[in-house]
């Protein structure tokens, strides 16, 4: 199974998210994945992710959110990462805004890989040193270095 660092293209790392509203942020993160060809039907993917966001919180606390969707509009599992200095309201149960946002897009048929990617990413982001590293990262390469260093 691919590592988190292998699923995150450098072009899909946005260190200075411009949007402050969660659906605009999701749009910012989806665009590079569409440009890379990983998401084949942008509107279908966005509607799947919006539907999930409207049903449940994907903010896992600690300033982290992991919006995700599994649809036919995705050709292979892929991630995007965005960082927001001001924070974005992802309705986390701890009531705090999310500053580190990982978007996961997966094909409909890859349920096991999708679940495992979510689990491994959630575990990774609970480590203080990972969140500190991602908050300090000055470039996409720094982000990938932090992830590579801490994923098992």
């Amino acid at each position, binding site marked *: 199974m691919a590592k988190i660092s292998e699923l995150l293209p450098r072009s899909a790392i946005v260190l200075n998210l411009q949007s402050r509203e969660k659906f605009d942020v999701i749009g910012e993160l989806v665009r590079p994945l569409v440009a890379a060809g990983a998401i084949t039907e942008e509107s279908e993917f966005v509607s799947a992710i919006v539907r999930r966001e409207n049903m449940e919180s994907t903010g896992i606390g600690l300033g982290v959110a992991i919006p995700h969707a599994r649809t036919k509009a995705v050709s292979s599992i892929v991630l995007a990462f965005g960082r927001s200095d001001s924070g974005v309201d992802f309705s986390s149960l701890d009531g705090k805004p999310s500053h580190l946002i990982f978007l996961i897009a997966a094909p409909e048929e890859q349920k096991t890989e999708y679940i495992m990617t979510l689990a491994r990413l*959630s*575990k990774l982001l609970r480590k203080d040193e990972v969140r500190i590293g991602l908050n300090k990262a000055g470039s996409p390469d720094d982000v990938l270095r932090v992830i590579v260093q801490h994923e098992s």
Partner: protein
Amino acid sequence: MERIMLYVEDTPGMATAATWTLRLAKGMSLRVFALSVVTPDAPRRRDTQTSDAEERAWSGLYEIEDDAFQKNVRISLLFETGDPLQKLISLSTSYDAELIVASADCRLTCSELVRQSSRPVVFVK
């Protein structure tokens, strides 16, 4: 009733308990809080053991979340480390869950959960 707390563990009976909970939640338009608690082990072994246990715990939570999404059931995932019984009791109170559901083969001491919880408890077999 509006909220249910589902206690999640990687036991053979968990899938049945989760299915029962989601069916109930769907039928009654309830919100589900799915809780998984990892127990810290002996300090020397903590890193590797907790890592594996944590990944399994998250994986169990996301399996249920994915199922809930397909069934249009509202769900929130809770991951904690510590004493499972105490975490379950305190979080079901703080999230105002009106019912606790656990698998009958969970590793909690069933009688202790029933005795200490102020909420009704259902064990699903």
